[in-house]
């Protein structure tokens, strides 16, 4: 999908990195050992939230309802052809 506005001529490219964007997760035994040994402030259990919400089905139904409401608020907007996402191919 092409969002146009932010396209720009490439400037200085940084050296490629072998670790993929948003990837590279790896838990080593040594790292896990460190976590277990040191303990972590982050590992404290989260404080329970306020009063319990209704049952899980009702919460899920409410979440679905919120997305449906969003869908309905978008329904009235007329979409010109210029808003079709462009797909461009380049010679390989």
């Amino acid at each position, binding site marked *: 999908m092409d969002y146009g506005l*932010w396209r720009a001529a490439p400037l*200085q490219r*940084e050296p490629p990195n072998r670790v993929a964007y948003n990837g590279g997760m790896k838990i080593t035994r040594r790292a896990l050992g460190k976590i277990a040994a040191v303990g972590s402030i*982050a590992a404290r259990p*989260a404080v329970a939230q306020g009063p319990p919400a209704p049952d899980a089905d009702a919460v899920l139904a409410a979440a*679905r309802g919120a997305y449906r409401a969003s869908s309905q608020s978008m329904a009235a907007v007329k979409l010109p052809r210029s808003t079709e996402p462009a797909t461009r191919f380049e010679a390989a």
Partner: protein
Amino acid sequence: MIPSSDILFSSISEISTRLRAKEFSAAELTTAYCDRLEKIGAAHNALARPLRESAIRKAKDVDDDLKRGRTRGLLQGIPYGAKDLLAVKGHPTTWGSKIFAAQVFTEDAQVIKRLDKAGAILAGKLAMVELAGGVGYRSAAASLTGPALNPWDRARWAGGSSSGSGVAAAAGLVAFALGSETSGSIITPAAYCGVTGFRPTYGLVSRRGAMSLAWTLDKIGPLCRSAEDCGIVLAVIAGGDAEDPGSARRGFTYAPKFDRKVSDFTVGYAPADFDSVAADARPALQAALAAVKGMGVKIKEIKIPDFPHGALIQTIIGAEAASIFEDIIRDGRVDQLADRNQAASLKAALDIPSVDYLKAMRIRTLARQAMREIFYGGVDLILTPSRGEPAGPVTDALGGARPAPWIPAGNLAGIPAISLPCGFAGNLPVGISFLGRAFFDNHVIAIGRAFQSVTDWHRRRPPVE
């Protein structure tokens, strides 16, 4: 010499000058910040993981470099904190959630690498709302570290999702902090905690090694104690990265001496934005509006373009987050989230019709065009309240906050914004925001500096000692 709290609340330039004048060493400075971070930060649920050992080791290296005259810019030897959605190799990166509590990356996020290269010292990882909170959380406790407490009033929330970053910058626990914003996660904690938060243009800062919530919206930016500090940090973290598909592959230079004169700027604002805020926040916001008018800028009344921004952002974040987190939704780990509303929203998002996502993205094209027309119509910057109210009670369910329509509108358009402290509602800070044209981040920082040259709200300190 152990740096005093006055120094710990100083600007980056001031701390840097004193460090080079050998009033204290980088190791002493880092120790002083680590002490505060581990004591005050932990007491406010703002700290995800202290990194004292590695920080002091790095600080000693900086001291050696400075002795030998190897200088590397203003951030050399300056301690900072990073939102726990940024990978730091060898340490857990939890994304604020129990699901990822044991997650360890083998490489630093790109922004951490850039700061490391500049000599900045990572003192700790900062708390955040789980999974950056983009999908319908309703509780301040939606975090592995518990509800982040506001340093101005511990009974109030610090805002999210960059909660720990807001607290740490406000309470002088670090010299600056990194946060991230998909829709409001820098601006909101900056406003609630009374700090200066900067959301860069989409694509200006690499997100490699950062948790992805919604790839067409995620941005990384600084939370600092002044607009100038934001400019200094942005100049280091910004830059192209071929490994981030959203990178604009542009650099950013912070050069305030080449700023346009403030009197050359035309600032647009919608009067309705200032009328619809909570009564206790209104005097501060009206006074801020008057201060901006008094700066000599040209003023123009505008209206926010008429699009269902909230519906667009909810659909886009929902669909993209469901795609990113599909594995934890399908295998049931999503139920380990502390906030069941967020878990339910992620599950429901898996069923968003593709036609709704496409429609939202197509309407977004129109919304962006409408935003550009405001700027092409002679407006350089848009002024609006950062939030319509001060921070709410930490025990209240979230969701009752007044709409802040320029937050989704600005994020959908990918444009930069800054939140500046502009007064108080009782004992709680109130913030005002400027939004600018895409890639005119320097204009936004310049107007922030100008505002902070005629006000002193950014110098106030919360009662945390």
